[in-house]
C-alpha cells in the first residue's frame, strides 16, 4: 500500500454520490444507501485519523508529479480531524434528513448532492495546493446552491439569491488572491509558497495579498462586515440542510483561514490586529442580532456569526495557546451547531412553527426530549463542564498572555449574550405554557409520523449530544489533540518538509 490511500475519503464520497445518482427517483433505496455510505465513510475517516495520529503527516502526489509541480494531498492531523468531524456531521444529517425531509424535496437528488458536498469539504481539508483548494471550494458551493434551492419556496429563493451572489463575489476575490500568489512566487503548492513568500522582500504586496484572502474567506465564514447573507439565508432551507451548512460551510472558511494564515502568511502583526478588531465586532453584532430576533432559525443564524468571532479572535492573537483554543472551539462548534439546527428542525416538526413567541410547553409535553435538547443548548453557552467552557478558558487565557484585555471583555460579553439568548429561548419554548397553534392541514407532525421516522430524527441528536458530552467530560483528550494541531500549525516546518521532502511510510 502506498500513501495514496489518504485520498480514500474523497474517492469514497465521490463513488457514493455517483451510485446514488443512479437511483434518481427511488427515494427509499437512496435513504438506506446514504446512511450506509455515511457510516462507511465515517469508518474510513476514523481509520485515516488513527493512521495519521500514529505516523504523522502523510503526503501523496496525485498523478505522480513531484511536489511543487503537481497537486499534493496532505493529511496532517488538523486536516484529518476536520475530515473526521465532517464525516460525523454528514452521518448525522444523512440520518436526520432520511427521517424528516419531505418526499418532493428528496426527489430532486438531495442525497447525491449531500455526498458530493461532503466530498468537496473533505477534498478541501486534505489538499495541499492553493488552487486545488479553490476548486474544492467551488465544488462545495455549487452543491450548497443546489441544496439551498431544493423545493424552491419563495423565501428559499430569496435567501438563495443573497447567498449565491455573495459567494460568487468571494470566489472571484479568492481567485484574484491566487493570481497574486502565483505572480509573487510562481508556485501554487502551499508549502512551496510558504518558503518563497518568506524570502520575499516586498512585504507590502504580501500583506495586500493576505488582505484579499482575509476578505474572501471572511465572506465565506461570515465575519463582521460581510456576514449579512448568513442570517438572511440559513433559516430558509429545511433544517437538515441548515444543519450541514451551519456545522461545516462557515467552518470551511475558518479552516482555510487557519491554514493560509499560519502556513503562508504566518505571524503578520498588522493582519493579526485587524482580525482581533473584526473578531470583537463579529461577536458583538452576532450576539445582539440573536437577541433581537424571534424566529429560532434566525436566532441560531446570528449565534453562528457570534461564535465565528471567537474563532477569529484566537487566530488574531496568534499564540500557541490561542490557536489551541480556536481549534478546540472549532471541534466543539461543528458538533454543536449541526446539532442545534437539528433540534430546531425537531421543534418545527413537533409544533409547525419556529416563532418562539408562539411556541411553548415543550418541557411539559416532551420532558425527555427537552432534556436531550438541553445538552446542545447549554454546551453552546459553555456552562462548565460542558464542551464550550474549555475552549473559552483557553481563549481568555491566551488573551491575558497577549494583553488583549478589550478582546477578553468582548469574549466574556459574547458568552453572556449567548447565555441570555439561550435562557430566553429556554423560557419561551420549553417553560412557557403551551399556546394553541393553528395547525396546517397538509403538514405532517411529529406524533403522526411512523416510529422509524421518529427515531431517525431523534437518533442523530442523541449521537451528537453524546459527542458533545464527550468533548466536555473527556476534555483532556481533546486538549491533547488540539495541542498537537496547534503545535503543527504554529511551526509549519514539519508540514513543509513532509510535502517537499516526500517522506513515505508503509502502514
Amino acid at each position: 500500500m502506498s500513501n495514496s490511500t489518504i485520498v480514500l475519503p474523497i474517492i469514497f464520497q465521490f463513488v457514493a454520490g455517483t451510485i446514488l445518482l443512479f437511483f434518481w427517483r427511488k427515494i427509499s433505496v437512496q435513504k438506506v444507501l446514504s446512511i450506509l455510505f455515511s457510516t462507511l465513510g465515517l469508518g474510513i475517516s476514523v481509520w485515516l485519523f488513527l493512521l495519521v495520529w500514529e505516523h504523522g503527516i502523510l503526503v501523496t502526489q496525485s498523478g505522480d508529479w513531484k511536489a511543487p509541480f503537481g497537486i499534493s494531498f496532505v493529511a496532517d492531523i488538523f486536516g484529518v480531524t476536520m475530515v473526521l468531524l465532517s464525516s460525523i456531521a454528514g452521518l448525522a444529517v444523512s440520518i436526520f434528513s432520511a427521517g424528516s425531509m419531505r418526499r418532493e424535496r428528496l426527489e430532486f437528488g438531495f442525497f447525491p448532492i449531500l455526498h458530493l458536498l461532503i466530498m468537496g469539504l473533505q477534498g478541501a481539508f486534505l489538499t495541499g495546493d492553493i488552487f486545488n483548494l479553490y476548486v474544492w471550494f467551488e465544488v462545495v458551493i455549487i452543491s450548497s446552491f443546489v441544496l439551498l434551492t431544493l423545493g424552491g419556496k419563495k423565501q428559499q429563493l430569496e435567501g438563495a439569491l443573497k447567498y449565491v451572489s455573495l459567494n460568487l463575489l468571494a470566489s472571484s476575490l479568492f481567485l484574484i488572491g491566487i493570481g497574486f500568489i502565483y505572480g509573487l512566487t510562481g508556485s501554487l503548492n502551499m508549502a512551496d509558497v510558504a518558503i518563497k513568500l518568506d524570502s520575499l522582500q516586498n512585504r507590502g504586496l504580501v500583506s495586500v495579498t493576505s488582505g484579499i484572502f482575509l476578505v474572501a474567506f471572511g465572506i465565506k465564514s461570515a465575519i463582521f462586515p460581510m456576514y449579512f447573507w448568513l442570517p438572511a439565508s440559513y433559516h430558509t432551507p429545511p433544517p437538515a440542510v441548515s444543519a450541514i451548512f451551519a456545522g461545516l460551510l462557515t467552518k470551511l472558511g475558518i479552516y482555510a483561514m487557519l491554514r493560509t494564515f499560519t502556513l503562508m502568511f504566518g505571524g503578520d502583526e498588522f493582519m493579526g490586529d485587524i482580525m482581533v478588531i473584526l473578531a470583537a465586532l463579529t461577536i458583538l453584532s452576532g450576539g445582539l442580532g440573536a437577541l433581537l430576533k424571534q424566529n429560532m432559525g434566525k436566532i441560531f443564524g446570528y449565534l453562528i456569526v457570534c461564535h465565528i468571532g471567537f474563532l477569529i479572535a484566537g487566530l488574531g492573537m496568534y499564540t500557541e495557546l490561542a490557536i489551541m483554543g480556536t481549534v478546540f472551539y472549532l471541534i466543539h462548534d461543528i458538533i454543536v451547531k449541526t446539532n442545534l439546527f437539528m433540534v430546531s428542525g425537531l421543534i418545527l416538526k413537533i409544533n409547525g412553527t419556529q416563532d418562539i413567541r408562539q411556541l411553548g410547553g415543550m418541557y411539559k409535553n416532551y420532558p425527555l426530549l427537552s432534556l436531550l435538547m438541553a445538552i446542545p443548548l447549554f454546551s453552546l453557552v459553555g456552562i462548565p463542564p460542558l464542551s464550550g467552557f474549555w475552549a473559552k478558558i483557553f481563549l481568555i487565557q491566551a488573551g491575558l498572555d497577549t494583553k488583549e484585555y478589550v478582546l477578553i471583555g468582548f469574549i466574556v460579553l459574547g458568552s453572556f449574550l449567548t447565555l441570555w439568548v439561550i435562557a430566553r429561548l429556554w423560557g419561551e419554548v420549553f417553560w412557557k405554557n403551551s399556546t394553541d397553534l393553528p395547525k396546517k392541514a397538509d403538514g405532517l407532525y411529529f406524533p403522526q409520523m411512523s416510529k422509524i421516522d421518529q427515531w431517525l430524527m431523534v437518533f442523530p441528536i442523541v449521537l451528537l449530544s453524546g459527542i458533545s458530552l464527550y468533548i466536555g467530560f473527556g476534555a483532556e483528550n481533546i486538549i491533547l489533540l488540539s495541542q498537537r494541531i496547534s503545535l503543527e500549525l504554529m511551526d509549519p516546518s514539519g508540514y513543509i518538509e513532509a510535502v517537499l521532502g516526500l517522506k513515505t511510510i508503509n502502514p
Partner: protein
Amino acid sequence: MEILLIIIIGLLHAGGLYMLLRRSMFKMIIGLILLGNGANLLIFLLGRLVKGNPPVIEDGMKVFSDIYADPVPQALVLTAIVIGFGLQSFAIILIKRVYKVLNTDDLDELNSTDEEI
C-alpha cells in the same frame, strides 16, 4: 501588451463593481460575470506574458536555456472558466426562478427574509 491588459482588467473590474451596485438583479449577475472575467485575465497577466517560446525543452538539453511561456496560468484560467461557466449558469437559472416567483427585478424589494422578526 501588459499595459493594455492592465487597462482591460481595470475596466472589467470597474464595470463589474458598477453593475453590482445597481439595484437590478439582472445587472448584478452581469457584474459578477465581469468580475470573474477580470480575475481570469489577472491570473493570465500575473503569470508573465511571453511570446513565441513554448515550454518545450529542445533535444539534447536538460533544462530551459531561454525564457519560456508558463503553461500553468493557462491551465488555471481554463479551470476557472469552466467553474465560472457552471456557477454563472446556475445563477442565471436562479434569477429567472426568483423573477418568476417574486415578480420583481428590484433588489430593494427582496428584503422579506431580513425584515420580519
